């Protein structure tokens, strides 16, 4: 610790702090413009100058480190003059845009002029800068060169936080400009817009704008992926007009393209406002009493005729904890069935199973924040595209710890460019390189004290480097290097996506990777963790709220429906036809006696329903989500739902009452109190504080040796297809209907990524349409030919469900009931 004096006040701060950080931590104000807490100090504005005793001139407090006994003065006549000079220079030719500038009222330049009492300009330059606005890296962001003060925050954010490199400072002296270097490198995180201190970078997702004092700001949890970043919804006249990034949560203010630009769907006018009942083949609007009566009648009828096992329910993985809990209780207590599941299973279940076996508990109490301080990281998945904030954490470890990075994926993803080792494997070959590395680590002496060591050692014995290279084509040198780094590291973290287990042997894959984590101490105290990050906001919460006692899983419910054993299906926000195996879902939904769908829009599943109930959007309810780390965070109501729409608790009470049963409707706060009592790991949590659920019991460590890795090749289907980008929020868009007019309008359409050698063999050129055929279905899609993806592997990016990728899915891992989305045998025909 270092003790110094600032403006006469003695303060103590950690060594390595800058004077500015020391001042801010102790409530001492130093004016700044280019400084930003998420970025390394830039030092471009020269406003934060301070005087240090013993020095002849001022120094910038943002880039000067504290020293023991330093005496600092932050205010003086000279400092004021220098700050005013700097400000005058910035203001030369600054346009008088304040009345219409987006930033008016929250502009740092305005604040500085006010604070420093600047009221005249001594300097002028002949040339005025280009006015703008101009398109920036994408149609949703605009750049106003005349307003730009060249603080360089945007360029630094683009380079430091997301490592994209899409924008740059170009030119020398006064000619220097922020320029778009390569718009294809832009990942639409919006970081540049969020960090801009003035109105030089604005986003135009919403045509409606409002001044900061006219609008309301509500902090809530993002409904898109399982990282649970905090959003600040900006609400004006009943609409969400923008999103900010508050400093809480994993992102600390950073957001991804979905969080920042994907909010227009919350305002969408096309939603269902009244129940729809199928009469004479078409869905017509009816009043609530009629709808409720129909549900009650049908459910009661089937319960009488066929019993509770003929009823099933499937929940969306984006429902709140409270909603999921209530629905779970309703299905069990009012309906009497335990046939309850969610697509959350597809993005979570095998992880829980592997952890239960490996550490004695179905979750790990290690926060993703620990990734920042790892010195070696293993990443399996495309973090930049699917969970950007997790990728940012990895990048922090690389730059702040010099961490070594091992990336494994069939496609060369963005993070792979900064990796020492890139393992480009075919889906299905995971266990080869995983066990190969395990074998190398055991050879280096790891894992001896862990239960199951001898069995694991024997099981991985045959995965020698030559054997693995021979079977998979992965160069043995890369695996040996990876094993070396893992063995040397002090703190290893693993991050992977559901891709790893959405395969027929998926459960084995996760257990295998967990063995690696155990070998290097990633799950023990001080370890970097074994993290699953995925696409839906409440996979953890919905699962933990509805843990069943027997009952059919989602796929089994559909199989039973197709066979006529399940006759009534209640879909709570789930869009089955886009996310479950296609032909099975079609058959099941057609065979049902009575299908009820509750959703915001008329989804494909809803179009097949007998009864459709309107649902609340994520911005219209109070509740909580549990993110991938087990952090329970609040979902807050920002908008009023249309007239007549009910909260889940109320809806369930109404249905129960029409069914002749008792049910109490309570507020989400009251429900959460009940959750704390009934769901053990939630006993100590308060969603408004964002605490972690979990118990303090010590973790175990047990190896789970792999079983049977030899897989059959499907004859006639020479390629392996993985479907990517599935399970994103279907409210953004579905099947060509882009409901969200902001982000939804610019997400690229579906494409099939193919290696250029494969393309040559198929005589396919970039952009050609092809038909992809699996044993279960087919789709037609445009190709994207390149070098990043491994030969023999195809990747189907479904856009916003622009093609029916699930039509190709049919195989299911029998042990986890997770369909194989990431390893589908296919063949390709030119169109």
């Amino acid at each position: 610790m270092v003790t110094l004096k600032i403006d006469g006040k003695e303060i103590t701060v950690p060594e390595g702090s800058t004077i500015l950080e020391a001042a801010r931590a102790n409530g001492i104000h130093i004016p700044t413009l280019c400084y930003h807490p998420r970025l390394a100090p830039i030092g471009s504005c020269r406003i934060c100058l301070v005087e240090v005793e013993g020095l002849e001139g001022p120094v910038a407090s943002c880039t000067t480190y504290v020293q023991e006994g330093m005496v600092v003065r932050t205010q003086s006549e000279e400092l004021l003059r220098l700050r005013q000079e700097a400000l005058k220079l910035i203001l030369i030719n600054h346009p008088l845009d304040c009345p219409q500038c987006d930033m008016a009222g929250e502009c740092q330049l305005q604040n500085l002029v006010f604070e420093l009492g600047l009221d005249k300009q001594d300097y002028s330059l002949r040339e005025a800068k280009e006015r703008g606005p101009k398109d920036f890296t994408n149609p949703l962001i605009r750049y106003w060169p005349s307003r730009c003060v060249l603080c360089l925050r945007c360029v630094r954010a683009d380079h430091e936080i997301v490592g994209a490199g899409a924008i740059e400072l170009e030119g020398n002296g006064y000619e220097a400009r922020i320029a778009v270097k390569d718009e294809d490198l832009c990942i639409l995180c919006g970081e540049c817009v969020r960090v801009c201190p003035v109105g030089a970078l604005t986003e135009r997702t919403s045509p409606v704008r409002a001044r900061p004092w006219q609008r309301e700001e509500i902090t809530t949890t993002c409904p898109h992926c399982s990282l649970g970043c905090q959003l600040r919804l900006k609400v004006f006249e009943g609409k969400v007009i923008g999103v900010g990034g508050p400093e809480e949560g994993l992102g600390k203010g950073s957001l991804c393209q979905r969080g920042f630009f994907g909010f227009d769907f919350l305002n969408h006018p096309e939603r269902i406002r009244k129940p729809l009942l199928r009469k004479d083949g078409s869905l017509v609007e009816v009043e609530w009493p009629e709808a409720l009566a129909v549900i009650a009648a049908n459910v009661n009828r089937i319960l009488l005729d066929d019993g509770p096992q003929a009823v099933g329910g499937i929940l969306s993985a984006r429902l709140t904890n409270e909603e999921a809990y209530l629905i779970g209780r309703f299905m069990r207590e009012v309906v009497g069935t335990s046939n309850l599941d969610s697509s959350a299973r597809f993005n979570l279940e095998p992880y829980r199973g592997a952890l239960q076996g490996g550490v004695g508990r179905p979750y790990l109490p290690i926060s993703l924040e620990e990734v920042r301080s790892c010195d070696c990281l293993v990443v399996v998945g495309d973090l930049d595209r699917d969970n950007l904030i997790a990728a940012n954490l990895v990048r922090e470890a690389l730059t702040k710890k010099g961490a070594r990075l091992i990336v494994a994926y069939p496609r060369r993803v963005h993070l792979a460019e900064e990796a020492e080792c890139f393992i480009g494997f075919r889906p299905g070959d995971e266990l080869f390189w995983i066990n190969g590395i395990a074998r190398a680590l055991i050879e280096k002496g790891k894992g001896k004290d862990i239960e199951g060591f001898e069995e694991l050692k024997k099981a991985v014995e045959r995965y020698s480097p030559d054997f693995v290279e021979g079977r998979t084509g992965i160069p043995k040198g890369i695996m040996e290097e990876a094993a070396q780094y893992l063995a040397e590291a002090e703190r290893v973290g693993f991050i992977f996506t559901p891709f790893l287990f959405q395969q027929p042997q998926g459960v084995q894959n996760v257990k295998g990777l967990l063995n690696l984590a155990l070998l290097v101490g990633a799950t023990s105290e001080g370890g970097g963790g074994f993290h699953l990050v995925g696409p839906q906001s409440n996979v953890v919460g919905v699962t933990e709220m509805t843990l069943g006692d027997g009952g059919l899983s989602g796929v089994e419910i559909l199989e039973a429906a197709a066979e006529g054993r399940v006759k009534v299906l209640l879909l709570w926000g789930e869009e089955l036809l886009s996310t479950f195996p296609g032909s099975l879902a079609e058959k099941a939904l057609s065979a049902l006696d009575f299908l009820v769908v509750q959703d915001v829009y008329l989804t494909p599943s809803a179009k097949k329903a007998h009864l459709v109930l309107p649902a609340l959007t994520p911005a219209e309810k109070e509740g909580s989500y549990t993110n991938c780390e087990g952090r329970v965070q609040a979902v807050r109501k920002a908008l009023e739902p249309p007239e007549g729409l009910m909260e889940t608790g109320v809806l369930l009470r109404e249905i129960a009452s029409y069914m002749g049963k008792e049910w109490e409707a309570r507020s989400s706060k009251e429900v959460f109190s009940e959750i704390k009592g009934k769901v053990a790991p939630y006993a100590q949590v308060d969603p408004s504080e964002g605490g972690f659920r979990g118990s303090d019991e010590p973790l175990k460590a047990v190896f789970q040796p792999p079983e049977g890795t030899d897989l059959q090749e499907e004859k006639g289907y020479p390629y392996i297809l993985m479907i990517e980008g599935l399970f994103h929020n279907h409210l953004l868009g579905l099947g060509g209907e882009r409901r969200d007019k902001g982000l939804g309008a610019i997400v690229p359409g579906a494409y099939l990524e193919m290696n250029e050698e494969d393309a040559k063999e198929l005589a396919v050129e970039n952009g050609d349409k092809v038909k992809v055929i699996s044993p279960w279905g087919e789709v037609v899609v445009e190709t994207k030919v390149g070098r990043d993806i491994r030969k023999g592997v195809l990747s189907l990016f479904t856009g916003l469900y622009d093609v029916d990728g699930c039509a190709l899915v049919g195989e299911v891992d029998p042990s986890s009931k997770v369909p194989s989305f990431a390893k589908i045998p296919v063949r390709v025909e030119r169109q």
Partner: protein
Amino acid sequence: MAEVIFSYWAGELVDNRGKGPEERKEPEKLRVPEEYRPGVPIKAFMGWDGLCVRDPAVSVVDMCRAYMEAVQKESCGKCFPCRVGTKVIAETLDRICQGEGRVEDLSLMEGLAQAIRKSAKCNLGQTAPVPLLVALEHFRDEFMEVITKKKAVPKGTYKAKATAPCLNACPSHLNIPTYIECIKEGDFTKSLQVIREGTCLPGTLGRVCVRPCEFNCRRMLLDEAVGIKALKRFVADYEIWKKKKPLLPAPEEKKDKKVGVIGAGPAGLSCAYYLAAKGYRVTIYERLDEPGGMAAVGIPDYRLPRHILRREVDLITSLGVEIRYNVEIGKDVKFSELLEEFDALFIGVGAQDSTPMRVEGEEKGYKGFIPGIKYLFAINKGYDPYPEGKRVAVVGGGNVAMDCVRTSFRIGKEEVNLLYRRTRKEMPADDVEIQEAEEEGVNFTFLCAPTRVIAEGDRVVGVELQRMELGEPDSSGRRRPVPIPGSEFVVETDILIPAIGQRVDLSFIEEKDGVEKSRRSTVVVDEDTFQTSRKGVFSAGDCVTGPDVLVRAAGGGRLAAEMIDLFLRGEEVAPSDDHLMEKVFSAIGVFDPEERVTGVGGRMREKMEVLPPEVRKRSFDEVEKGYRADQAVREASRCLRCYRVGLVAL
């Protein structure tokens, strides 16, 4: 000798205006060269600490205008005061020089200049206003005259360039502050690109360069010089660790002309690389069976792992350069044949012959008497030239001597002695090498020089030495060793290694070839164009300078490539303005060890991990581990970015 009219520099004011001949003084602290180029006198100089005027025809007002314009061109644009402030001043001066000045302009510029000087982010902005402030103080009348007369001032002829103390000290003039800033900003790839504009051997230099830049680094005036060498090594290694595809210069369209290069050492490799980058076809003839010259076979692997150098050579050949190994010019191919075959030639044979000690017994061919270079060659090839010998004595004090003693432990020798005729302070070897050798257990004996080799039969058993004392300084500035009569003593040893210097072997050049050799048997070249006495034949490196440092050879090779390019295009073979300006700056001196730097010190250099002495002395594993990414970024942020602009009026 043109007389100085006015000079202000390093706090010394010499104002000879209006003074009689007896009163006039010459400045001592500022020595501006007479001429820019032969026949082109320097009429005035304006730089980061003041200005100097020799010709009354020079308009100081116009010179200020030109200077500020140059500053604006150099300004990186990353801070407000320099980016905008110097533009305001430049525009104001431009207006004044066009006859549209106003009296208020002067105080406005003065105030703004003071503000920029105090608040700019880097040394460019901090130094740019200085000469203007000096001019405004001492030439105010001239400014007032231009303003009140409202007549345009004719534009003079100027050359301007930005330099930095480190950049100027570097024999290759690498753009150091820029590549360090790239590291600070996390753009390691761009840093390496900037480095490759100046040298093709970053991984090598990052390990073995003598780093004159660091000895001219202003940061040392605050706490400790920036680890420039280590930072260069980091970005070169980073490309390897992360398996990145090297970004090499895209060869311009292929040219017909062919260039022959003799010697695949640092000079020859650099020359070949830059010529290939320009599209020329280059063939290198190398005597040994591997590339790198002294860097490969002279520098041991624990300092410079072979694979690093090999990779850099592979990148050079990937540009299309052909290397023919095991071809000795003079023996296998005649020099005159090369003169016929190629449109231009570059001689880079280095200095690989050992300088004899001239003591009795040296010529007898005793077993165990092995010249330093031969010793290192053998070991680098993987064999011990004299396994029976267990005790080693090396005579010398340079890096070759250090390589010999440290390598001896690594091949299993038990006792290793270093014998040097002066004291530790005068040893020319790298201080880090000496220290690491001490840690590894080398016995140093100072102030002694050999008088004869002691042998038994045909084997060396010892060396007789005479004690020395230090007398007057010699031409190198070091105190000359003076023998003390009657002070002979013997050091017993099995292996005696003279490592006191190297000589150039130019026997392959015959008189009829027309390439002049000096008395010391080096190639004579023009110091700015590297051309020999024969048109189209160029040379650089140790064979021109005598044994010198790698970075100078590499720098010479690159500059020679530029000159060869001019020659082959039929243009005048003359040094570029950049080169000439740096020469002017070198004469003036860029680094001022007395300067008072405003800043907070106390941040010492990042410590690089090294292998412990007991572990490293028995293996050829690389001793220094290099920086991690976070260390490199922290170290790079210590750089003060000492760019400053110098301008000459011609």
